[in-house]
């Protein structure tokens, strides 16, 4: 049984009311403010939404399973009447006049929007450390599990210096779900931005197939790769949210027109008829021995269940990150051009000319990372470089996508890979390298799925020796989310990932909503 049904059932049966639930979550957000997961907490509107939900439950007419359920949204989705900043000075104070389609869909189902979560500025980064509101802290830094594994002499040192990152760029959303302040959160995924923080924060992070979920209202980074991401505490919940968000949107012409049918995952998933591929190139330098061992163990789980587990090859894997780097910066250069101070966002006082106003506005509004990518992108798009870099990268992209097609075409159903190179590193260590270097290293297992547009999911697998979450990734065929999530659910049941032991969660009575790993599933 998934526990979202648990909380949903609790609401239906009146064990807890939507307003109580909302208040508890808001209180927990306050108690965990040090995590810096939220940029904006929409307390008033959330309570109003909860009240409306309560009225519906009293009438016996909830809108659906998500009615009254507190959710959070990454701050690069437009939310009407609520500030949308992208963690940038460029959009500080920007109040969107409309809701992103996915936000509207959640609200139409009665979900209670608690607030907007923190991220790397304009979703550029893999640590959630480079936004103007400061870095997000991984809730597991404060867990009993992590503290117990800390070297004794460090325990007496101020916890301040020991905390680990959430990963990114959807770190706020991952932290929000991980710390029980909400039951589901939206992230975005362009190169791994939903799966990476999901792995570090011990939550489920789903990247849907490109074209399945509307991007209307998601402030774009890379139009050909961005997707809204779903973060939850268990796979069943992710399936429910996916069911509510997927489908054609006339406002996003890159959504496919096929009819999408929401699905329920089987209670007792069966993987014995499946073929699981292990891409050998994902055994990358820098992969921690711990994760390597877990990956191997996972493969054994499938073997023992009767699945066919084979080694496969994705030969262009090592060029994937380079290719991504060129295409990403090129599209970013184009997408960031809209921020000129005229219609919305920050505007410089410089008044001499349009161009100088634009230049000053952008100088004042963007951080180093964003400016760096814009300049790189423009370089690759120069006439003298266009063929050699941009077109070249587009060709390599096809080779990468073809690698996957070949493997899936040869009878493999699902690929099993690591999500990250290691468990979360301390913030003080993470910032020793610059953003681009970090992104290059950290996106290595995740961004190929974005290049090929494939669905992929992080499933929390185990705790590392340091007491921090480690996840594994499953990559599926285009638009085969049902199969992907079925396998993910089966795996989730096998590993029985532990619940975070966080004092604040217990204090606010939200630990009652933990996912119960019943033995009857295995």
């Amino acid at each position, binding site marked *: 049984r998934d526990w979202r049904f648990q909380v949903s059932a609790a609401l239906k049966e009146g064990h807890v009311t939507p307003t109580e639930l909302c208040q508890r979550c808001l209180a927990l957000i306050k108690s965990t403010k040090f995590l810096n997961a939220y940029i904006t907490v929409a307390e008033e509107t959330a309570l109003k939404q909860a009240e409306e939900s309560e009225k519906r439950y009293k009438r016996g007419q909830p809108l659906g399973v998500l009615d009254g359920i507190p959710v959070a949204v990454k701050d690069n989705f437009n939310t009407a009447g609520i500030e949308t900043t992208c963690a940038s000075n460029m959009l500080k104070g920007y109040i969107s006049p409309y809701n992103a389609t996915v936000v509207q869909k959640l609200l139409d189902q009665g979900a209670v929007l608690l607030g907007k979560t923190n991220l790397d500025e304009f979703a550029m980064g893999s640590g959630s450390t480079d936004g103007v509101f400061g870095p997000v802290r991984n809730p597991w830094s404060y867990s009993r599990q992590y503290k117990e594994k800390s070297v004794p002499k460090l325990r007496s040192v101020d916890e301040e210096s020991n905390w680990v990152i959430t990963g990114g760029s959807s770190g706020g959303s991952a932290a929000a779900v991980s710390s029980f302040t909400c039951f589901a959160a939206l992230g975005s995924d362009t190169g791994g931005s939903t799966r990476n923080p999901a792995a570090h924060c011990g939550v489920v992070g789903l990247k849907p197939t490109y074209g399945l979920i509307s991007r209307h209202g998601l402030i774009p980074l890379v139009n*050909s790769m961005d997707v809204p991401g779903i973060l939850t505490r268990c796979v069943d919940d992710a399936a429910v949210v996916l069911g509510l968000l997927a489908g054609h949107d006339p406002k996003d012409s890159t959504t496919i027109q096929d009819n999408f049918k929401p699905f329920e995952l089987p209670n007792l998933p069966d993987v014995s008829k499946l073929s699981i591929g292990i891409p050998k190139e994902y055994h990358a330098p820098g992969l921690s021995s711990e994760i390597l061992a877990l990956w191997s163990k996972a493969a054994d789980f499938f073997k023992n269940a009767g699945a066919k587990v084979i080694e496969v090859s994705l030969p262009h894997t090592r060029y994937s990150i380079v290719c991504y780097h060129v295409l990403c910066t090129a599209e970013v250069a184009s997408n960031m051009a809209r921020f000129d101070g005229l219609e919305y966002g920050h505007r410089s006082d410089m008044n001499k000319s349009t161009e*100088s106003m634009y230049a000053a506005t952008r100088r004042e509004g963007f951080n180093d990372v964003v400016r760096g990518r814009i300049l*790189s992108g423009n370089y690759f798009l120069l006439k003298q470089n266009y063929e050699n870099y941009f077109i070249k990268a587009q060709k390599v992209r*096809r080779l990468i996508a073809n690698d996957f097609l070949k493997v899936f075409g040869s009878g493999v159903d699902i690929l099993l890979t690591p999500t990250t190179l290691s468990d979360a590193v301390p913030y003080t260590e993470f910032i020793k390298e610059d953003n681009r270097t970090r992104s290059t290293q950290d996106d290595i297992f995740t961004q190929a799925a974005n290049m090929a547009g494939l669905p992929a999911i992080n499933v929390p697998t185990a705790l590392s020796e340091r007491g921090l979450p480690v996840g594994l990734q499953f990559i599926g065929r285009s638009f085969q989310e049902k199969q992907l999530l079925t396998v993910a659910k089966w795996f989730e049941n096998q590993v029985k990932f532990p619940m975070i032991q966080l004092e604040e969660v217990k204090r606010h009575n939200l630990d009652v909503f933990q996912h119960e790993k019943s033995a009857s599933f295995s």
Partner: protein
Amino acid sequence: QKVTVEVLDHLEHLALVDFRDAEGVERLQKAIRFADQLHEVNTDGVEPMDSVLEDRCLYLREDDVTEGNCTNELLKNAREKVEEYFVAPPGNIPLPKLEERETFLQGS
């Protein structure tokens, strides 16, 4: 192979974003060196890929106006406006040349 000051200046004009300091310029140099690895891949006969959905047809919809009339909403977010106009400073004035504008590149 270092990027010339002319190209750097050109990029600042195109992007309307500044390099700010030596680190910014070095960031670009590193990015180019990194991207150069692409040239190791043999892409003879390979078509560039614009979109993973290239096998599907783009579709049209009826040209029916279903939304709009939200001028006030949209103007709310602009800092400078007059009636229903966004106000921009004078156009057609190019960014000052390298020697005349405040840029890190001036010293190069």
